């Protein structure tokens, strides 16, 4: 079976700045892949291109064998690639459960003629049950009835993840999920990410916190100044001189 996500020759220039430079990597089905790099390495740009929020200057992204480069975000989501946001973006005027149900948007049959039909009612009921199960899965049960605007930052992050999972993705993109979380919350998050992979969903994590990522990812891609400088198992990457160099500076690497 081929890879679920293939990124090849990806380049993004902003005027004179090359944010991503000829980047290529693959992600296999059910794998947890981490993309790391210091600030400004091009992680977020790469992420935005894969999710369809940004068009690349050149290069291609293929998802389940189909090119998705240049597709709008909603079309990419409909194909089973869902994302979370680094800065939580909840639907503040809606209850927790409805936030999650928006994530299931692509799962509903959209025919306007069945608005009043019993099958639409059944579909709605089943979706609610699945959303309730996701609330339990990410551990948001105590915040279930809370106003979304009053959730803590960590709870908001869990809501982001539950919302993306509601779309029953084949691949979930997590944009710096550990950023801003307490150590205890990070630990819980790591458990959730492993649980997602155990469900057969591939995970692409963008992260700059190595301590969070290395024990979690099965494979790591390291970026620096828009280029890939390493790609491999966490242990191999940890000891790679180029990676130490990028993260710690030349003196420490020597």
């Amino acid at each position, binding site marked *: 079976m081929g890879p679920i996500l293939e990124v090849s020759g990806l380049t993004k220039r902003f005027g004179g700045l090359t944010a991503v430079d000829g980047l290529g990597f693959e992600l296999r089905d059910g794998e947890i892949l981490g993309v790391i790099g210091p600030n400004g390495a091009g992680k977020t740009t790469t992420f935005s291109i894969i999710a369809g929020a940004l068009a690349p200057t050149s290069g291609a992204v293929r998802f389940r064998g189909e090119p998705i480069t240049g597709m709008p*975000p909603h079309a990419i989501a409909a194909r089973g690639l869902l994302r979370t946001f680094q800065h939580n973006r909840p639907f503040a005027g809606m209850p927790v459960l409805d936030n999650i149900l928006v994530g299931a948007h692509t799962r509903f049959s959209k025919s306007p003629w069945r608005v009043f039909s019993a099958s639409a009612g059944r579909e709605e009921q089943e979706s609610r049950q699945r959303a309730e199960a996701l609330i339990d899965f990410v551990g948001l049960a105590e915040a279930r009835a809370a106003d979304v605007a009053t959730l803590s930052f960590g709870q908001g992050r869990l809501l982001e993840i539950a919302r993306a999972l509601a779309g029953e993705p084949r691949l979930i993109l997590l944009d710096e999920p550990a950023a801003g979380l307490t150590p205890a919350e990070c630990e819980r998050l790591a458990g959730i990410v492993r649980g997602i992979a155990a469900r057969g969903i591939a995970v692409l994590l963008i992260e700059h916190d190595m301590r969070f990522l290395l024990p979690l990812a099965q494979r790591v891609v390291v970026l620096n100044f828009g280029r890939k400088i390493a790609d491999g198992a966490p242990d191999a990457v940890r000891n790679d001189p180029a990676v130490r160099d990028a993260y710690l500076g030349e003196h420490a690497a020597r």
Partner: protein
Amino acid sequence: MKNLALWIGAALVMAAAPFFLGEYHGDLYRKLLLWIALALSYNFLFGISGQVTFSHFAFYGLGAYGAVILVVKAGWPLALAVPAGVLVCAAVALAVAIPATRLEGFYLALATLAFGQLFIVVLNEGGALTGGTGGLANYHLPKIAGFDLTGRPYTAVIVVLVLGTAALLRRLDHSWFGRACRAVRDNPEAAAAMGVNVARTKVAAFALTSALAGVAGMAYAFVDNTVNPPIFGLENAFLLLFMVIIGGAGRHAGAVLGAVLLYLLPFGLSPLIGHHHALVFGVLMVAAILLQPRGLIGLWDRFSR
């Protein structure tokens, strides 16, 4: 089934009510019901889908004039004129929605305001077709299967309209479509990331609610048996916005509450302050925005908890 019985029961009570009211109060009651229908659809557009527009009364007028022109001037049978009128409203609503919904916030408000004003100009300059500034009058609803529906019995038509609007919008609100509308209102970028087609959702909400306003206008045409331009102008478009905000934007019950209150308030106030009720509306509006952004229904929530 129990739900259906409830809706039918409500319909019967609402349709029977004018038989216990005088001529004058029966007339006010029918107009109140029309305001409620408009507030419900405008609430879906403004409160739920988050689009601030001022074209709702233009579509109401389009339906009203369309009904009179098709039924009276062209003499089409009702069985043909009613679906044709609905189609015209839906088609115009869609034609306006596609360019208008590409605009946001202030610019959408301005563009729809311009459309509303343009519509009034067309009515005023429409010659014999629209009757110019005097509008159209002295026509009658043709008999339906031998029945003359004018006056009290016509209430049944309006009740079907109001309850149909309420049932449709409630059902849509509690479906993927209503959630998509709210998601687009709250955070379009996140909505798109969840697979919501933002542009299409906005167009659908605008076109659907505007078409509903048009259908309400078709019903209105035979309430007074007269239509004239000022009814469909800006003053009422703003009153509708006030109703939804003061009642509680985004909530169906809020829209009903706001419509009832602001429609009836001038009648209660006129012995005290004459025709200066707009002043009271202004104060209420500022108070709602400053003190209770969730409107009267938000107050109700707080005290009933």
